[in-house]
């Protein structure tokens, strides 16, 4: 099963909507609760990163009997130094975004800790692709 969801940059009101849908879907399919928890932490952080840092994006979710594969493809400023961005505490979030409680620089570390396989690719000035795979 493959699903596609659009995400709008700056739209904090709907941030987490895709994560919520995917969580419900995984529950319906009877996926192990621990795997659901991990996947939803990773997906939510990656979804919010599109909202907080990019202009718009598309989330593709592929659910198989033995794994979930999620690709988050955005058009945005890209990440100049991915290793630096992966460091806990590193954030370029705006003051407004920080005021909401985002911008701790913990999103990417959370994604890493909650994915079996994580791939981040980025082209400055074009956009970022985050790929998460979790095995059941």
């Amino acid at each position, binding site marked *: 099963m493959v699903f596609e969801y659009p995400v709008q940059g700056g739209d*904090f*009101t709907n*941030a*987490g*909507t895709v*994560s*919520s849908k995917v*969580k419900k879907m995984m529950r319906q399919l009877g996926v192990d609760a621990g795997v659901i*928890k991990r996947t*939803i*932490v990773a997906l*939510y*952080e990656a979804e*919010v990163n599109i909202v907080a840092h990019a202009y718009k994006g598309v989330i593709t979710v592929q659910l198989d009997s033995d794994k979930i594969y999620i690709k988050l493809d955005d058009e945005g400023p890209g990440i100049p130094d991915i290793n630096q961005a992966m460091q806990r505490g590193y954030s370029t979030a705006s003051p407004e975004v920080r005021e*909401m*409680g*985002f911008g*701790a620089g*913990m*999103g990417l*570390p*959370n994604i890493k*800790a*909650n994915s079996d396989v994580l791939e981040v690719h980025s082209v400055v000035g074009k956009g970022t692709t985050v790929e998460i795979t979790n095995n059941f």
Partner: protein
Amino acid sequence: MTVKELAEKMNLKIFCGETNLDRTIEGCYVSDLLSDVMGNAKSGMAWITLQTHQNVAAIASLKDLSCIILVKGFEPEEDTLQHAVEEEIPVLGTSQQTFETAGQVYQLIC
């Protein structure tokens, strides 16, 4: 201890979630940094925060938290309430500071 018992003992205001107050509180997490909560809170925990926007309800639901406790007299925004009602997350409130609130919750549930 259930959310209802905690709300009664601490005299918390109940903004929404009256029908879900029978949930058991399993621990508590205190943080205003959303990805800290996302990464470290465990299901069943109560969440003490001063953040009032809609993402708080989204996170509480995604993490299966038992309730949200807003401190310092803060009230949930309209869309936070709406989302919390949809996701059946009790949102409670107190006029106390975070320190006193966390201290009381600790004494009551630990």
